[in-house]
């Protein structure tokens, strides 16, 4: 095998310029794919991180049917203490879970004593919330980074529209599940930066304040947001929770709870899917580039070396070894392109990181692009390129091995 490799490499070196050009073409393709994967992956991961770590969490649990009615924030679909106990038991039995936060979600009227508008609010236990969505505190643009009883974190657009600042006094009026209206005065504790996605423009209050305004003796929970120990545990944790809670039935004999991953809750998942589809098509383009360029070179190589093929066939070289010679030529060309492309790709990604490019997404400004590529991606791309290079060499190699030595030796 070593000798076949030696002959293959020498044959490639025989036409240095052509080998270099083809190898460069493959390498450029690899660089583009790696850079695209790293940039799009960085964007995707950053956005997923922003969404899950800022407000959504990795998984959410609600009473069955709540998500479908999310726009109206129905208080009638909250979890009572008994149901909550079952959910907390399931959570405690799921080792992948790092933290969880119980929320009361409700809609109300927000008044600065001059104007009144609608507001969507979350009543939370601050410590649990901060553990579950660790980027939450970084969203507090102004004011103390805390959710204190008697204070409200106002979404920035609302604050701007209602001209309220930190320290201002506002009133929140809400209707409880029985239809009676109640109001409570709050001090604006902070201004909250908006993030993309549903719930990204909600205000926050302490859960005790939420319970008070909604006249709940004990907090009835609308939503439980869950943070996992690792993002890679998403589906195993989801399956575990679904199995545990799926068996709990309501009085109608139907499942009492619904469990959703962030993918089902955020429209950004569709963008992430689109990025994945685009990445797939970019990989297809790379495959096309490699296929066409390697096949072109190998077909030419066979045509140029017909007499040589005739000679080695005449002196008894088995067809399998002739195939191997050309396949290894294609393999070597692919390997060269992949290795050069990988090195250049990593260098380009390093430069992009050093340049600290920023981008805007929705109302989020100045997000710093930090492209990175995993060893797995590099290996995958390299293996794809090498396999396609070998496949592209198959037909020319087969043709060479099947050549009639007499015709080949006669070739001028």
């Amino acid at each position, binding site marked *: 095998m070593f*000798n*076949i490799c030696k*002959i293959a490499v*020498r*044959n490639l*070196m*025989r036409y240095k310029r052509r080998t270099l050009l083809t190898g460069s073409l493959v390498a450029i393709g690899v660089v583009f794919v790696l850079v695209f994967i790293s940039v799009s992956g960085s964007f995707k991961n950053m956005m997923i991180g922003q969404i899950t770590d800022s407000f959504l969490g990795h998984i959410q649990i609600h009473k069955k049917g709540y998500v479908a009615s999310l726009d109206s924030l129905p208080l009638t679909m909250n979890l009572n203490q008994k149901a909550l106990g079952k959910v907390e038991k399931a959570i405690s039995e799921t080792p992948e879970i790092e933290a969880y936060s119980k929320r009361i979600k409700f809609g109300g009227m927000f008044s600065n004593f001059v104007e009144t508008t609608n507001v969507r609010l979350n009543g939370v236990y601050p410590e649990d919330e901060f553990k579950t969505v660790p980027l939450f505190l970084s969203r507090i643009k102004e004011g103390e980074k805390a959710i204190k009883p008697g204070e409200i974190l106002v979404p920035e657009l609302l604050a701007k529209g209602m001209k309220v600042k930190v320290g201002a006094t506002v009133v929140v009026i809400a209707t409880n599940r029985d239809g009676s209206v109640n109001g409570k005065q709050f001090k604006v504790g902070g201004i909250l930066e908006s993030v993309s996605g549903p719930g990204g423009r909600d205000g926050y209050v302490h859960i005790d304040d939420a319970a008070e305004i909604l006249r709940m003796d004990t907090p009835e929970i609308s939503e439980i947001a869950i943070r996992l120990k690792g993002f890679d545990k998403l589906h195993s944790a989801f399956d575990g929770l679904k199995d545990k809670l799926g068996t709990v039935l309501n009085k109608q004999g139907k499942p009492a709870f619904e469990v959703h991953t962030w993918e089902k809750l955020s429209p950004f998942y569709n963008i992430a899917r689109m990025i994945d589809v685009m990445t797939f098509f970019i990989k297809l383009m790379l495959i096309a580039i490699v296929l066409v360029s390697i096949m072109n070179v190998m077909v030419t190589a066979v045509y140029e070396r017909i*007499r*040589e093929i*005739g*000679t*080695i*066939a*005449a*002196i*008894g*070289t*088995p*067809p399998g*070894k002739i195939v191997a010679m050309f396949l290894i030529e294609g393999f070597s060309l692919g390997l060269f392109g992949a290795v050069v492309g990988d090195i250049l790709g990593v260098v380009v990604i390093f430069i992009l990181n050093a340049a600290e490019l920023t981008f805007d997404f929705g109302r989020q400004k100045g997000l710093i692009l930090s492209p990175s590529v995993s060893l797995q991606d590099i290996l995958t791309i390299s293996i794809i390129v090498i396999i396609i290079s070998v496949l592209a060499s198959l037909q020319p190699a087969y043709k060479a091995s099947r050549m009639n*030595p*007499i015709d080949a*030796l006669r070739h001028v």
Partner: protein
Amino acid sequence: MLLNRKDKPMSLITANNLSKTYAKGELKVEALKSLNFEIEPASFISFVGPSGSGKTTLLNLIGCLDKPTSGTLTVDGTDVSSLNTRMAAAFRGREIGFIFQDFNLIPVLTVYENVGYPLLMVQNTPAAERKKRIDALLEAVGMADKKDKYPDQISGGQKQRVAVARALVTNPKLVLADEPTANLDHKTAYMVIDIMKKMKNELGTTFIFSTHDQKIVGEAEIIYSLEDGELTK
């Protein structure tokens, strides 16, 4: 060590009513017409005749590169017309050496590697044995000092000497040479013929070559004349 086959008693090649017909559309060309001959081991034989007389076709049949249309051809006891492509390749690699008019050395291999190619790629000979045989043959053809040169760095005569060494390195029973001196000047041609004769005497290898060079023909022990696909002598 290279094997000596001088004492081999049987015919090396036997042709019975050997015919080859090429079909070109509806036109059929009879390249060889019912040839009958026997060739003994350790012979030095020349097939002569004008272009188109069937010399190359006959060498192709003997060399298992082609199959007869009718008749039988036995080489070293094997009916070569019955061999499939893979078996024919293996038979060639084992029993037959080839010398070509245009030398046909592999340009990316050195002289040493060209000579060693059949041992390495066809017979998978162990390295020590390979080295011994290559060195012996390069010495014998006077190319030992050029073993690291590539084909484009040596002359035509030197290339053909390398080709002779390559043909003999597997210790074949038979070497076929199609117009081996056609691209050489007379002096070099005689030198190459001398080397082939020397190898025949030393190794007991049968050499069959086709030529229409009358000066070279005189060097053969047995001369077969071909004309329009028929043996005339």
